[in-house]
C-alpha cells in the first residue's frame, strides 16, 4: 500500500437478507424447506463503495438514515463481512460505534471502566495506569464506587467517553457518539477532536449532522442509496446533501413551514427587520424555501438565487437579471461560511459598481465559529486571510465605505456551531443629519 494511505476501500458491496417473516423457529425452517420458496428479500446496502483515507485525515461520511453509512463503518470495524471488495487498513484501528459498550448498571463505575476498557482492547496494566486520568476527565471522582444505575445518563456518557478517548490507536472510527451530553461536555468532546486532529491521527467520522462535519473534517463523503454521490470539500458536500434532502422534501406537504430552528429564526428576523414596502432578494440560500415562506406571510420577496454545488458568484448571477434596480433589501443566509465570504466579497464589488441603487438594508445570517477560532488562536496580523476564508468583520468594514453600518448584531447556536446575524443599514448623509438634529 502507498505509505500515506491509512484506509483503502475498493468496490465494497454488501447486501442483507431481509426475511419477509423472520424465521426464528425450527418449524418455519422446515416449512420453507418443503415449500422451496425464498422467503427473504435481498437488500443491497452498499453497491460498490470505493474511497481512500490518507493518514492524518479527518474524513466525514454523511448521508441520510438507511443510506449505508453505518454499514460501511461496521465493515471498516470488521464487525460485518463484505460480500465482495477489498478493505485495506494500515495501522491499529479502534471503532466507537457506541459509547460504553458492555456497561452494566449493576456494576460500580470503577468496575464498568475496567470492563469497558478491556472490551476496547486495553490490557489490565494499561487500564491501571490510565484509570486516574479517566476519572479525572469524567469529573466523577466521588462517584466511582457507586453503581452505574445511580448515575445520571449524562454521567454515564461522560464516563464512557473518557474511557474511549484513551485509545491511542492510529485510526479511530466514530459514529455520531456526540449526540448526547450537556453543552459543557460537548465542548470538551470538541476539544478532544481538535487534539486528535493535531496529533495527526486518522479519524473516520460518521454523522448526519453536516454542521459537525464541516466543523471538523478535512474531507467529506456523501453516501446515498449505497453509493458515493459526492466526495470532497465538506462545504461543497454540504450543498449536495442539502439538495438530496430537498428532493425528498419536495413530496412533503409541510413544505411551507420552517424545517429547522435556524430557518424559523431567519424568517422571524426577516419579518421583524423588513416591512411590506421592501423588495427583497435572497442570495446564496439554496432552495428558495425561505422566499416562499416569507412571501406567504406577506412580505414581498423577489426571488432567490440557488447555487448548484459550486462556489459561483451568486450576486453577479442575480445582477445579470433585470430586477436588480428595484431591490431594497438583501438577505444572505447560508450555512457555508466560505460561501458567505464569497458573496460578501462580490457584493462589495457590485455595490461599488453601482449595481444596487436602491439597496438599503442587508441581512446576513452566517456561521461564525470558524472566525471565533481565528480570533482565539491566531496572530492578529494573519487575520484577514486564512486559506480562502476571510475575516467577515473585515468585509463588513469594507461595506461601511458605501454607507452600510451594522445596526444589530446577534448570535445563537451551540458551541459546535454558532450563527451570527448582522443587519446593516445604509445611512446617507441626509439621514445622518436628520438623526443628529432630532
Amino acid at each position, binding site marked *: *500500500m502507498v505509505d500515506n494511505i491509512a484506509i483503502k476501500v475498493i468496490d465494497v458491496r454488501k447486501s*442483507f437478507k431481509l426475511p419477509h417473516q423472520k*424465521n*426464528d*423457529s*425450527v*418449524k418455519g*425452517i422446515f416449512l420453507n424447506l418443503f415449500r422451496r420458496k425464498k422467503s427473504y428479500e435481498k437488500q443491497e446496502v452498499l453497491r460498490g463503495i470505493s474511497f481512500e483515507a490518507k493518514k492524518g485525515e479527518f474524513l466525514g461520511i454523511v448521508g441520510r438514515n438507511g443510506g449505508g453509512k453505518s454499514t460501511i463503518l*461496521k465493515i471498516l*470495524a*470488521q*464487525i*460485518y*463481512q*463484505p*460480500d*465482495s*471488495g*477489498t*478493505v*485495506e*487498513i*494500515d*495501522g*491499529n*484501528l479502534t*471503532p466507537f*460505534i*457506541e459509547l460504553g*459498550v*458492555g456497561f*452494566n448498571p*449493576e*456494576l460500580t463505575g470503577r*468496575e464498568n471502566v*475496567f*470492563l469497558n*476498557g*478491556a*472490551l*476496547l*482492547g*486495553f*490490557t*489490565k*496494566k494499561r*487500564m491501571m495506569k490510565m484509570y486516574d486520568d479517566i476519572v479525572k476527565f469524567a469529573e466523577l471522582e466521588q462517584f466511582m464506587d457507586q453503581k452505574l444505575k445511580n448515575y445520571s445518563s449524562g454521567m454515564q456518557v461522560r464516563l464512557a467517553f473518557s474511557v474511549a478517548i484513551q485509545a491511542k490507536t*492510529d485510526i479511530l472510527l466514530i459514529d455520531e457518539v456526540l449526540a448526547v451530553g450537556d453543552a459543557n461536555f460537548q465542548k470538551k468532546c470538541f476539544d478532544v477532536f481538535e487534539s486528535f486532529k493535531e496529533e495527526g491521527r486518522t479519524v473516520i467520522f460518521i454523522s448526519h449532522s453536516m454542521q459537525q462535519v464541516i466543523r471538523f473534517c478535512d474531507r467529506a463523503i456523501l453516501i446515498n442509496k449505497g453509493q458515493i454521490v459526492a466526495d470532497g470539500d465538506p462545504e461543497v458536500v454540504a450543498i449536495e446533501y442539502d439538495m438530496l434532502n430537498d428532493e425528498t422534501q419536495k413530496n412533503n406537504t409541510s413544505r411551507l413551514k420552517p424545517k429547522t430552528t435556524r430557518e424559523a429564526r431567519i424568517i422571524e428576523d426577516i419579518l421583524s427587520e423588513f416591512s411590506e414596502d421592501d423588495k427583497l432578494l435572497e442570495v446564496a440560500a439554496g432552495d428558495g424555501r425561505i422566499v416562499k415562506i416569507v412571501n406567504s406571510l406577506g412580505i414581498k420577496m423577489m426571488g432567490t438565487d440557488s447555487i448548484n454545488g459550486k462556489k459561483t458568484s451568486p450576486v453577479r448571477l442575480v445582477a445579470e437579471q433585470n430586477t436588480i434596480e428595484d431591490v431594497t433589501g438583501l438577505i444572505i443566509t447560508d450555512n457555508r461560511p466560505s460561501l458567505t465570504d464569497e458573496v460578501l466579497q462580490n457584493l462589495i464589488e457590485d455595490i461599488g459598481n453601482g449595481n444596487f441603487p436602491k439597496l438599503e438594508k442587508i441581512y446576513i445570517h452566517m456561521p461564525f465559529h470558524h472566525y471565533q477560532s481565528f480570533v482565539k488562536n491566531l496572530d492578529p496580523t494573519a487575520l484577514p486571510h486564512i486559506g480562502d476564508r476571510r475575516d467577515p468583520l473585515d468585509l463588513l468594514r469594507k461595506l461601511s465605505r458605501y454607507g452600510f453600518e451594522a445596526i444589530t448584531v446577534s448570535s445563537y447556536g451551540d458551541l459546535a456551531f454558532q450563527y451570527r446575524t448582522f443587519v446593516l443599514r445604509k445611512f446617507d448623509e441626509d439621514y445622518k443629519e436628520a438623526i443628529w438634529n432630532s
Partner: protein
Amino acid sequence: MRPTIAYQSVEMYNQWISMKFFSRIISQKNIAIFTQLVAADFKIKYQGSALGYFWSLLKPLMMFSVLYLVFGVIFRIGDSIPNYPIYLLLGIVLWSFFAETTQNGLQAVVSREDLIKKIRIPRWIVVLSTSASALINLVLNLVVVFVFAIFTGVDFGWTSLLLIIFILEIYILALGLSLLLSALYVRFRDITYIWDVVIQAGFYATPILYPITLITDPIILKIMILSPIASSIQGARDAFVTSETLTISEIFNSPYAFLIPLGISLTFFVVGLLYFRKQSKYFAENL
C-alpha cells in the same frame, strides 16, 4: 513499518483469520477481555441476594437432599453401594456442571448481542467466559464434595486425582456443544426449548440417581455407557468414591474402551468449533 491488515472478500478473510488464529488466541488483550467478562458475570449473578455465593453451593446440596431422601432413604436404591450419599452427590455435581455450561453457553452469543454488534472482540470469548462461571461453581461444589467425603470416610489415593481428567472430558464436550448450540441459537430460537428437554431427558438417561448395575440388558448398558457424560461420571466415582463402580472398561472388557466416549467428546468439540468459526462472521448481522 506497521503491520498491514488487509482482507479481500471472504476467502482472504478466512486466510487472515487462520494464519493469525492461534498466535492471537492468548494475547494480553484477550486475557483482559476474558477476565473482565467473567468477573462481571460473577459479580452480577448474585446481586441483591442475601446469601450470595452460597446459593451456588446450596442449590446442588438441596437437590441432593431431596433426591437422597426419595431414592436413598425411601426407595433404598443405593443400598448396594458403599458411600451412596457421596456417590450420588458427585454425580449430581458433575451433571449440574454439564447442564449449566451448555445451558448458559447456548445463550452466550445472543445474550451478548450488545457486544457482538458493537465491537470487534473474538466471538469465542463470550462462550468461553460463560463456561468459566460454571467452572467456578464446579470448584466450589467439589469443595463441598471433598468435605463430605472426609466425613463419610472415603479412602483417598493417588487415583483420586483421575477425577480431574474426567472433569476435563465433560468440559470438552460441554464447550463443544456450547459453541455449536450458541451459533445455532443465533438463527433458530427454538433450540433453547429443545435443549432444556434434552438436558431433562439426559438426567434420567445417565446413571446419576440409580446405580448402572440396575440395567440388566447388556446392549442398553453398552449404549448408555458410551455417552461421555455417563462414562466420565462412572469413572469419576470409580476413582474418587468407591472402586466397586462399574466403569466402561469393565463393561466392554477392554482398557481402551474409554477412547470411544473421549473421541465423541473431541468430535463434538471440533465440530462445534468449526461451525462456530464459520458462523461467527455473520453473528453481527444475523442477531
